[in-house]
Structure formats: structure tokens, C-alpha cells
């Protein structure tokens, strides 16, 4: 998708005035935060697991070449194919050519952020292939022609009325002509429409939460079961996954599973945790005849060696989004590309170029909650600060903020003048009260801190 990350500031203004969005954000915020807290509090071992998961991930990243090659061998041994793609274009081309080789006309998809990153749907559609997103949230935003606004709850910004309108408009052709209003009816209608898509699909494409080197398996965690219908019913299953998804063994994955759902939705495990290993066996009665894994790099192998390598630990749980005061105020679309929130503010500039998303590293109060809740202990505030430094260094001329600081420094270096000026300004502000410039500042009490302190000292 085309990025609008460069107009982040403009989009935040629109988002703050969008009533539907603000209601949706208010609702989802407590939902995610409370559930996560309860789940984490119920597991005394959580921090030790978190520590262990970081160790496992760092170990894997330090030997990433070995584990990827081992994974590849195991996929081959189970009868599948591995394809390598260094760029989004290469990944799309490979997936399109797998689809064309099997003369696919219809594709169903499980929820996958990497497929958003490489803009896979557009590539498939340009080649005349019908793509249907089957995760309910993804399906809703596909109908609305919008990008996801949250990495695990893509339609979190939509109200049920908006969804009812979308279904009313798009489901007429399937014979559903009633306008619905209740959530159970909406879910049930989507189930019926998507059932037909599942059965008629030639290829099923899923992402992967983890790849397992030991067994050559791709793991997906879902609640709806759409991922499993996607990887079982069509005759070809394609897994698209980025290279840092690989983990060594089944035991290693167990540690991550204990962290992922708790951090994301507050569940101990999602309804379905599914391991796909190769195509159907000769004696199986169902399952795909072909199993492909497309490994996507898109800049990750370079991140491995630079000061942002900790970002490769991310398991896409969304906890940093849910706990971010900026995300909670403006929602995901303002960020302008695939990944929103703190993790997105780090990833987007790294993937698209800092010049195309220079506002994003500043879209943080650096309050540190994202790092606190991150199951992989990624120092997000540190990474955001590093991007700010890079951005500052890349600017040839002095910025508006830079000039302002220089102006302030003239006074700050001369304490007498500084105190004199602040005393005047504060009295002026106290008299003017609310200036009406977009936000209400508390009215100053008419005295500077220094003056108040002197008085207090004199008293005692």
C-alpha cells in the first residue's frame, strides 16, 4: 500500500475529530489493557518466560543463517518447497507465479501482516486473481478498501453500523438482502459468505507466527479457525513469512506461545494453534497437495547488524499499540502505513526510509509503557530516540524547533534576565487565562517557582 506516513501530523488532526474512531478507541483500550493485565498477573512465571524468550530469540538471530537453512532442509524433507525473496516485489512475483502454475483463479487468505507489508493483494489482483481475506476483521476492511488499523484487530476502528452497511452493500450479490444490526447476525452472515469462498479457493495463503527449524513447520495462532480452513481446503498452501520468524525447536516455541496470546488478547492460548508441516501425506483424506514457504527479507538482514536489531525480536502481539497514549488518541490509520503504534514508528522509517516517515519517531511521549509491556523487552523508547537523532543529523539546515531552542538559550544562559522575563510572562498568562489555542492549559497562579520557593524559605 502507498504510505501516507509523511503526512502523519495532518492525519492526527483528522483522527482526533473523528467521533466514531474516538469511541472505538475508548472501547478497545480498556478491553485490551485489562485483559492483558489479568492474564499476566495470573502467571507468576511471566517475567522469567519473557527473559527466556529474549535469550532464545537473540540466540536464533545470532545464528539466523544456520536456522533458516535447517528450516529449509526440513521443509524439503516433508515434501514442501522454500522460496527466498529479498524484496517485496520478488516475494509477490514468486507467490503470483505459484498461483499461475496451478492455474489459480481464487485465493483465500488468513490474516498476515507480512502480506500487507509486501502489498500482496494488489499484486494478485493485478494478475486477475480474486483474493478474499477470511479473518473477519481483515474481511471487513477489505470490503471497506482500508488498511488494518491495528496489527491484531484490523477493524477495531469500525462501528457495527458501518460494518452492517458494508455487508448490506456487498452481500446483496450472494442473496443476503436484509440490513442487519446485531453482532451475532453479522458474524453469522460473514460465516456463510466466507464458507463459499473457502470451498471454491484454489490456493490458501497464510502468514506464520513462528517457523520451526527442527520440524520445518509453520505455526499460526488464530481464534476464528479461518487460518485452518485456509490451509486445509485449497489444493495449494502458501506460507509467507519474514526471516526473523524462525525459532529452533518445538520447546522454544512453547515459551513464546505462553507469552504471545497473553500479551495480545489476554488469553492463555488462542482457540487454535496450528502447526503445518508439508503437504498432505499420501494416505491423508484432506489437506493441500502442495506446500510452499516464501521467506521474505525486505531489509531485515541489514537490521540484524545495526543499532535497531532489537526490533527483530518483535512477535507482533500489539501490546505496545494498546498501551501507547499516542495510538490510543489517534488510532492506527494516522500512522499511514502497515504497522502503527510504537513498533510501527520504529519499523516504518526503517523500511520506507526516514525521510518518508520522519514524524513517526516523534509520535511518542517516551513514557516507556511500550517497553514495559513488550513480551520481548524491546527498548522501543531507545529505538525511537535513535531515530530522532538520525533524523536530526540528516537535516542540513536548522529546524524550527532548533531555532526556537537557540532563541531560548540566549535567555537561559543569562539567569537574571531569564527570571525577570519569566515573572512577566507568567503574570501575563495568569491574567489572560485560557488562550483558546486548541488545548486548555491550567491557569498559572501568578508567581514563578523561584519566587514561590524564596517565600517558602523565608517563612521557615
Amino acid at each position, binding site marked *: 500500500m502507498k504510505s501516507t506516513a509523511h503526512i502523519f501530523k495532518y492525519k492526527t488532526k483528522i483522527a482526533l475529530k473523528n467521533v466514531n474512531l474516538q469511541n472505538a478507541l475508548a472501547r478497545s483500550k480498556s478491553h485490551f489493557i485489562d485483559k492483558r493485565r489479568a492474564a499476566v498477573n495470573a502467571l507468576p512465571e511471566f517475567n522469567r518466560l519473557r527473559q527466556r524468550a529474549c535469550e532464545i530469540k537473540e540466540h536464533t538471530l545470532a545464528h539466523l543463517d544456520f536456522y533458516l537453512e535447517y528450516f529449509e532442509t526440513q521443509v524439503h524433507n516433508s515434501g514442501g518447497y522454500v522460496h527466498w525473496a*529479498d524484496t517485496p516485489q520478488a516475494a509477490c512475483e514468486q507467490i503470483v507465479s505459484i498461483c499461475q502454475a496451478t492455474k489459480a483463479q481464487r485465493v483465500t487468505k488468513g490474516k498476515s501482516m507480512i502480506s500487507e507489508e509486501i502489498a500482496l493483494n494488489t499484486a494478485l489482483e493485478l494478475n486477475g486473481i480474486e483474493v478474499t481475506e477470511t479473518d473477519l476483521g481483515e474481511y471487513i476492511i477489505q470490503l471497506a478498501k482500508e488498511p488494518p488499523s491495528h496489527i491484531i*484487530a484490523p477493524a477495531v476502528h469500525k462501528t*457495527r453500523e458501518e460494518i452492517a452497511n458494508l455487508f448490506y452493500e456487498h452481500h446483496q450479490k450472494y442473496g443476503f438482502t436484509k440490513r442487519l444490526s446485531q453482532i451475532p447476525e453479522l458474524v453469522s452472515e460473514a460465516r456463510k459468505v466466507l464458507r463459499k469462498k473457502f470451498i471454491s479457493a484454489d490456493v490458501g495463503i497464510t502468514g506464520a507466527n513462528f517457523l520451526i527449524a527442527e520440524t520445518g513447520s509453520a505455526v499460526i495462532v488464530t481464534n476464528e*479457525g479461518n487460518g485452518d480452513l485456509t490451509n486445509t481446503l485449497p489444493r495449494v498452501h502458501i506460507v509467507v513469512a519474514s526471516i526473523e520468524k524462525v525459532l529452533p525447536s518445538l520447546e522454544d516455541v512453547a515459551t513464546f506461545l505462553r507469552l504471545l496470546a497473553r500479551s495480545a488478547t489476554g488469553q492463555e492460548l488462542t482457540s487454535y494453534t496450528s502447526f503445518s508441516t508439508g503437504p498432505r501425506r499420501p494416505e491423508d483424506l484432506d*489437506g493441500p497437495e502442495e506446500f510452499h514457504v516464501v521467506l521474505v527479507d525486505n531489509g531485515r538482514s541489514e537490521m*540484524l547488524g545495526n543499532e535497531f536489531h532489537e526490533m527483530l525480536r518483535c512477535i507482533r502481539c500489539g501490546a505496545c499499540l494498546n498501551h501507547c497514549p499516542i495510538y490510543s488518541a489517534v488510532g492506527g490509520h494516522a500512522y499511514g502505513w502497515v504497522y502503527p503504534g510504537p513498533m510501527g514508528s520504529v519499523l516504518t522509517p526503517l523500511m520506507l526510509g526516514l525521510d518518508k516517515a520522519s514524524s513517526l519517531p516523534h509520535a511518542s511521549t517516551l513514557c516507556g509503557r511500550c517497553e514495559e509491556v513488550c513480551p520481548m523487552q524491546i527498548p522501543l523508547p531507545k529505538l525511537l530516540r535513535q531515530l530522532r537523532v538520525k533524523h536530526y543529523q540528516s537535516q542540513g539546515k536548522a529546524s524550527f524547533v532548533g531555532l526556537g531552542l537557540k532563541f531560548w538559550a540566549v535567555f537561559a544562559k543569562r539567569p537574571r534576565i531569564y527570571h525577570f522575563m519569566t515573572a512577566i510572562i507568567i503574570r501575563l498568562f495568569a491574567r489572560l487565562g485560557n488562550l483558546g489555542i486548541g488545548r486548555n492549559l491550567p491557569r498559572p497562579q501568578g508567581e514563578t517557582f523561584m519566587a514561590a520557593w524564596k517565600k517558602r524559605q523565608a517563612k521557615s
Partner: protein
Amino acid sequence: MNQARQKILQNIRHSLGRNELDVNTINKLKARLAAHTVHEQPALPKDLISLFIHKLKQVAATLELIPNAKEIPFAVLAFLQKHNLAQKLVMDANLKNLPWPNKWQIAYRAAQVEDQLSVTTAFAGIAETGSLVLLSSTASPTTLNFVPENHIIVLHRKNLVPHIEAVWMRLRAQAMPRSVNIITGPSRTADIEQTIQLGAHGPRRLHVILVN
């Protein structure tokens, strides 16, 4: 494609500041893979059955405890009656030898869209999370776990394990099947206004028959 492979692997090595790994390191990594070391696990109470039942309830699955396998058809009948379902089932072939009523229509095959109820056997149950582990095989195709609206899973008590890692140990005694499904409650979604709704794409009801 091979070019991309070479490029990615070279980039990785370049970023890590090294060449291809030496034999010594590779052997160490292979040894790590072969060791199957279990990491930290949550402490669990001793009574696994009670824990398992408690966890099943938490994820909105239902349960019936029965003394022996001969009772399975009665437990299935009770479920059919409770939910007013037709006596038409699609089933895991491992259950073929049980005394099923003659008038029931029972199929042993992959699931089809019109199937309303499936009955399968679990490879294992996990007490830690109230999960059931199902493996794809000739006898139990994966579609049985996802296509019908009602899913009954038979779990034998001897297959109830404390943690997921115990499943891996048992799984390694056989070849890895195409599909391993760890099922924790019925299908659900919260994609519309964060309201949990059961039966999004998979089964609306998940019923466990635990054979003691």
C-alpha cells in the same frame, strides 16, 4: 530465486560480522536442536483433571466425564438431544468399533459443508491451558476439526498431560503429521466492537468427552 537466497544469507553473515559458521559451532547448534531442552514451565496444581476441567470452562468448552469407552455413544447421544441435532455424524475412524446405534447415519471421511457434527479423538489433552491436541491422519482428517458447527472430542485420561512440552515428547515417537491442531475452546471472534462471538468460522460448540 537462488540469487535471492545467496544474497539474504550473505547479508545475514555480513550483518553478524562473520563468515559461514565453522563445523564446531554447527555441531553445537545441532546438539542444541537434538537436546529438546524444556525451558521454564508454569507451576501447576497436582490434580490435573480438576485443572483441565476448570480451564475448559474458562474457554467456553463443555465436558462430560465417563467411566469407560463403551459409554461414549451415550455421551454423544446426550449431546445430540441437548442441542436438538439430527443423528447424522461424521467421525474419526478410530471410533468405528464402538457400539453405535444402528439407525444413526455415521460417515468416516473428510468433513463436507453440510456436516453438522463431528466426533474425533484427541492425541493429547493439556491441563495447563485446557487444550486438546489433534493430529491429521487417514482416520482423522483435519476438516473434521473445523468444518462442522459442533465438535465432540474424545480424550482418554492417560493422554492428559500437564504441559505442552509433554506433547512434543510423545509426538517425536512418530512421524510429524501434516497438521497438528492445538484446540482451546470453540471458534470465536471479537472483530466487531470487541464483542466476543462464538462460532466465527470453526465450531460454535466444543464438547469434550473425558474417558476416565
